[in-house]
């Protein structure tokens, strides 16, 4: 019965549904963009490794002028070794230094960031070597001039030929390429993660950069429940080693990637909710559209209502008839909206340089919302219809 009535006015029904279609579509598309941002952030943080603590030097503080964080030179390789030796519940400790250099091979040159790391770096960043091998403990101990290059560096310097075994020059010093990393693509921050040259930490510190400190130490904790405990242990250990006593401020920072992740998660969830609610407003507007059309429909069908009542339809019968009609508008509009929303978010994901993630929750929520809106905004017109006086209604022209 509801369908007959809706089919009798196809164009109008469609236009009425349009409000719901756009509303549901917008909610799904918006939320999927929000969720996409969230998953990007999460994956970029977790690509740094899960259960990660990052120790970096504090900022310089001379005569009240604070330098940038990490500008101090007091975080030593020995600190990293001490952490590795003394702290419990840790899997890997990976100190690193990095600086940009011009890399030369033959007549080709390329600017890239050069990182000095220990072999643990590979596990901690879940890197994989495509051809060749990664740097070893031995390379690190002997300060070998060897390098593992990212695929961007490889293609820019070597084109299609195999870099392994070739010599490149970094800051005019020869390094032998021993491996090429598997591509990791762009990070969510838009950085090219393949534009990197990796050399042994000691080589980088002593032969290349002439520095006796490291820029950061990454620590992978074995159990995520122990993060806070391990963080505290490390802070105590470093304060001890750096002879910081009493209430004096630390000269280093320990960042907990898990809590960073939580913060980012909260932020992106807020973003998603915000986007979703803005889109949700159009859903409400769509509902008002339903109400509007149902009011017109009730007026138009006054005579029909009179006839039905004369034949024995009760208040409830008429109420249901109109409610079902508006709910059907909500349901059909919701279904089409889901289709369009999903399509839209896939298009955005494909061509819009955005990651979009469609989860069942917003689909389910916006669908039930559209059904609920059909119901809610249908009640008033349906009541109006059901309360009509049969004689008045039959007399209506």
């Amino acid at each position, binding site marked *: 019965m509801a369908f007959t009535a809706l089919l009798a006015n196809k164009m109008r029904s469609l236009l009425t549904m349009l409000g719901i279609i756009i509303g549901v579509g917008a909610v799904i598309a918006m939320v999927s963009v929000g969720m996409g941002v969230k998953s990007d952030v999460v994956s970029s943080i977790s690509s740094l490794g899960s259960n990660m603590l990052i120790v970096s030097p504090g900022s310089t503080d001379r005569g009240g002028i604070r330098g940038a964080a990490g500008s101090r030179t007091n975080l030593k390789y020995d600190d990293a070794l001490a952490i590795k030796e003394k702290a419990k519940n840790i899997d890997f400790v990976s100190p690193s230094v990095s600086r940009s250099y011009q890399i030369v091979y033959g007549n080709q040159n390329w600017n890239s960031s050069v990182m000095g790391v220990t072999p643990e770096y590979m596990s901690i960043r879940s890197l994989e070597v495509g051809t060749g091998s990664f740097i070893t403990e031995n390379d690190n101990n002997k300060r070998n001039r060897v390098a593992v290059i990212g695929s961007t560096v490889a293609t820019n310097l070597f084109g299609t030929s195999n870099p392994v075994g070739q010599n490149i020059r970094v800051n005019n010093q020869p390094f032998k390429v021993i491996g090429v990393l598997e591509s990791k693509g762009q990070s969510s921050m838009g950085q090219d993660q393949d534009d990197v040259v990796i050399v042994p930490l000691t080589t980088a510190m002593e032969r290349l950069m002439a520095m006796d400190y490291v820029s950061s130490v990454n620590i992978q904790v074995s159990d995520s429940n122990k993060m806070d405990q391990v963080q505290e242990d490390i802070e105590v250990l470093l304060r001890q080693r750096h002879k910081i006593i009493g209430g004096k401020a630390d000269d280093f920072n320990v960042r907990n990637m898990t809590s960073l992740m939580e913060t980012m998660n909260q932020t992106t969830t807020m973003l998603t909710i915000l986007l979703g609610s803005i889109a949700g407003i159009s859903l409400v507007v769509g509902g008002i559209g339903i109400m509007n059309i149902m009011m017109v429909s009730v007026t138009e069908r006054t*005579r029909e209502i*009179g006839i039905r009542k*004369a034949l024995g*339809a009760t208040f409830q019968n008429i109420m249901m008839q109109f409610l079902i009609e508006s709910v059907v508008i909500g349901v059909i509009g919701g279904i089409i909206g889901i289709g369009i929303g999903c399509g839209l978010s896939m298009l955005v994901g494909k061509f819009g340089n955005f990651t979009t993630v469609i989860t069942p929750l917003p689909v389910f929520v916006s669908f039930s919302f559209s059904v609920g809106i059909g119901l809610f905004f249908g009640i008033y017109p349906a009541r109006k219809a059901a309360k009509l006086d049969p*004689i008045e209604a039959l007399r209506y022209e």
Partner: protein
Amino acid sequence: MGNIEKITISLRGIKKLYKVGDQEVAALNGIDLDIKEGEFAALMGPSGSGKSTLMNILGCLDRPSVGSYRLDGQEVAHLSDDMLAKTRNQKIGFVFQNFNLLSRISALENVALPLVYAGVDSDEREERAMYFLEQVGLADRADHQPNELSGGQRQRVAIARALVNDPQIIMADEPTGNLDTKSTKEIMEIFQSMHEKGRTIILVTHEPDIAVCASRQLLVRDGVITRDEGKGVVLDVV
């Protein structure tokens, strides 16, 4: 019709008052009327005399302002809207001057409509609706929509609809008012045969030659019944 005639409709002191501006108009001004089971009563009277108002009250579409209405022994003057709806559905069949069919559904579905509200399941609805369409000679038009039928055919569909739930009383307010002579004759024949089968019929008409078909003629004037005659008398309406 047995020996002891059952009184189906009993009105006592029925008044219907309308407020127009700050004046009170009495559309019905004290009606006492008994109609026995199986009677065929014609309501006559000049325009504005209150015939339709009386029919609406008899048909449980409206409530009297004052008075008592016993239908089948049950007081219905002050029933709730839903109870009135139920009563209409079960006891009364309506035939209107302007047919009042739903335009978007077929003749068969129109006939079946009262059964929807009586809670009859769809197979039986269709079967019973078809039976009554056959009775009015429109079985071959079952799938037609009202606008594909002539006036006379539409009124026959409406009669089939009035009969479908097997009501005790058929109320018809000028059922032939919009029809030509030939259709009028056909419709009146149907009313005659319903009467012969023992159904109670109340019919409003302006035309004396239609009223003479009835077993009883009532003349309404200014909201009261002024004459009550048996069959055969020709009442002067004007």
